[in-house]
């Protein structure tokens, strides 16, 4: 298991390197940030001067080597726009996004699993079918559209919840979080719901498929033959088995949630990483983009690693020592 973790981490380093190279090339291909940011009244000479000041006139590999050198010393570059260390900028936004993503995942789990179980156990019931139909709805509607509808309904029409923004934050271990106050929770509700919706649908479908499968298994029959109550059979025997694929998918989804949080954060004016990255991409703020991608990739690696570890906890048959396990 230690070998497994170590191997993963070493591979991840390569992933991060490749990642940063790709981002470099990508941003370079899109355009020149100076063209977007430069004062309208600046002359061509000034433009050339600024470009040179940023080293953007150097060959790309040159810029990349320089970046690596700095990165090795912990300097991921300074944002062009914010004039702040890029990594710090992202870390500053990380708690907000994490809060949102975690809330969304929690909602997905809390609603998705029971709904899926229900639909899987009561296959032919009206409710079971309705759940499946609703899940299609959840998957097919574009996030931004649902987001606006939520705002329209809950904020504008009913006036129950704020239309956007993050509520007041409290520091926990130096990390600002907003879910501790009622006001913060109220702000969190809609964006989290928006982000969760597609995932609720996904988890529901997964849980249903898992339940269907598990109910066919011999061990469920054996559990019945032991005289266990259906509550125990479903709540322990079935649930623990369906959790395994769900954990894997949720780990995968976590990345997607962060990606889609770009949209949700934009719609709900949520000051998270997603909004930062979309703004940065808009103005080609390369240090921020690179730092963001590296952070996200790292998160990914860690989450997948954690997922694999959880996986081996949930399913004792999984042995992590194996060659290059999942």
């Amino acid at each position, binding site marked *: *298991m*230690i070998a497994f973790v*170590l*191997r993963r981490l*070493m591979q991840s380093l390569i992933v991060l390197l490749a990642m940063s190279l790709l981002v470099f090339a990508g941003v370079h291909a899109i355009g020149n940030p100076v063209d977007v940011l430069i004062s309208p009244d600046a002359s061509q000479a000034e433009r050339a001067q600024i470009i040179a000041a940023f080293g953007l006139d150097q060959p790309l590999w040159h810029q990349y080597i320089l970046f690596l050198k700095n990165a090795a010393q912990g300097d991921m570059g300074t944002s062009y726009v914010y004039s702040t260390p890029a990594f710090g900028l992202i870390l500053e936004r990380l708690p907000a996004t994490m809060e949102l993503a975690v809330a969304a995942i929690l909602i997905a789990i809390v609603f998705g699993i029971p709904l899926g179980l229900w639909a899987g156990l009561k296959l032919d019931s009206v409710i079971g079918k309705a759940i499946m139909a609703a899940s299609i709805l959840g998957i097919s509607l574009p996030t931004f559209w649902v987001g606006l509808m939520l705002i329209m309904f809950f904020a504008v029409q009913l006036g129950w919840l704020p239309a956007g923004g993050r509520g007041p934050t409290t520091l926990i271990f130096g990390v600002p979080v907003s879910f501790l106050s009622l006001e913060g929770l109220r702000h969190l509700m809609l964006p989290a719901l928006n982000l969760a919706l597609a995932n609720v649908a996904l988890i529901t479908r997964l849980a249903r498929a898992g339940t269907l499968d598990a109910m066919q298994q011999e061990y469920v029959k054996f559990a019945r033959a032991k005289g266990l109550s259906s509550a125990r059979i479903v709540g322990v025997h079935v649930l623990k088995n369906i959790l395994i694929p769900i954990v894997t998918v949720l780990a995968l989804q976590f990345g997607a949630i962060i990606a889609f949080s770009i949209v949700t954060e934009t719609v709900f004016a949520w000051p998270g990483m997603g909004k930062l990255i979309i703004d940065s991409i808009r103005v080609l703020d390369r240090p921020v983009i690179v730092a963001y991608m590296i952070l996200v990739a790292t998160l990914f690696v860690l989450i997948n690693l954690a997922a694999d570890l959880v996986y081996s906890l949930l399913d004792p048959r999984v042995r992590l*020592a*194996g*060659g290059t396990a999942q």
Partner: protein
Amino acid sequence: MSQHPNPILEFDDVSKTFSQPVDFAGRIARVMTRNASKPVVNAVDRVSLSVSHGEVVGLVGESGSGKSTLGRIAVGLLQPSRGTVHWQGKPLEQLDNEASRRKQLAAQMVFQDPYASLNPRMRVVDIVGEAPVAHGLVQKKDKETYVADLLQKVGLDAAMLQRFPHQFSGGQRARIGIARAIAVQPQFLVCDEPVAALDVSVQAQVINLFMQLRAELGLSYLFISHDLGVVRHMADRVAVMYLGRIVEIAPTEELFLRANHPYTVMLLASMPVLDVGQRRAIPIAGEGTSMETIHSGCRFHSRCPHAVPRCQVDEPKLREVAPGHWSACHLNRQDD
């Protein structure tokens, strides 16, 4: 001990170990946990055995003793870690490309589980006909007739060409597995517990089929089973494996009448027989030792009722206890 006439396939001191490849990270982890052992399974340990043309060699032994592994080595699905396999007298590694391709086809396997060994999403005509077409043994256009013929040969209706495996009964599936193997015109068949999953009445049909094929096509068999009754019926010679090693080899009748090795004796004793009134209550004799816990001495010593102190130290070698009857037990001769 390989002076049998005209062996078609011969294992010469063959071993197979399964181990985890240890990479850089693994090494670091081993240092960190101060764990120096490398997890190794000696699935097959220094086995020498030959099968003659037209001979049926039965291979028995308890679950996990390495029977299937040996079978897989025979048909080339696994490479031995040590030792060589001879095909018609020649070491496998000395065969040229064409010859080793021919060997590949000439040695086929009938798998243990008649269902898992059939691709659930392929129709019978493809399951059986794919390889002969791919190897140019038959024309594509003749595939159906060729497969139909084979099906008839194994006692299936040619009208079932287009069916999927699940649409067959267990006995029929076993026959499809056999048809697939003989479709590439092999000379040597490894049958890995081919009747274990079958009903009694069907079992008889399949055993009859094997014997019929042997008579018609002159096939040689390595017949793996732990059902001693079936092996006794089919085999000319029987080899008994225990934890990766062959502990006894003898002509069939000789083995059943004069079993020498304590493990063989125990095996024979636990075999249920259809004779009413023989109510035996066998005491629980340990749980089978596993491959990972072998240390030294005779592998059977922990379960052996006759174990002597020496059994814990020395590993016994195969010795000829009667003509053609070899056994590996210290109780046979005390001299060395």
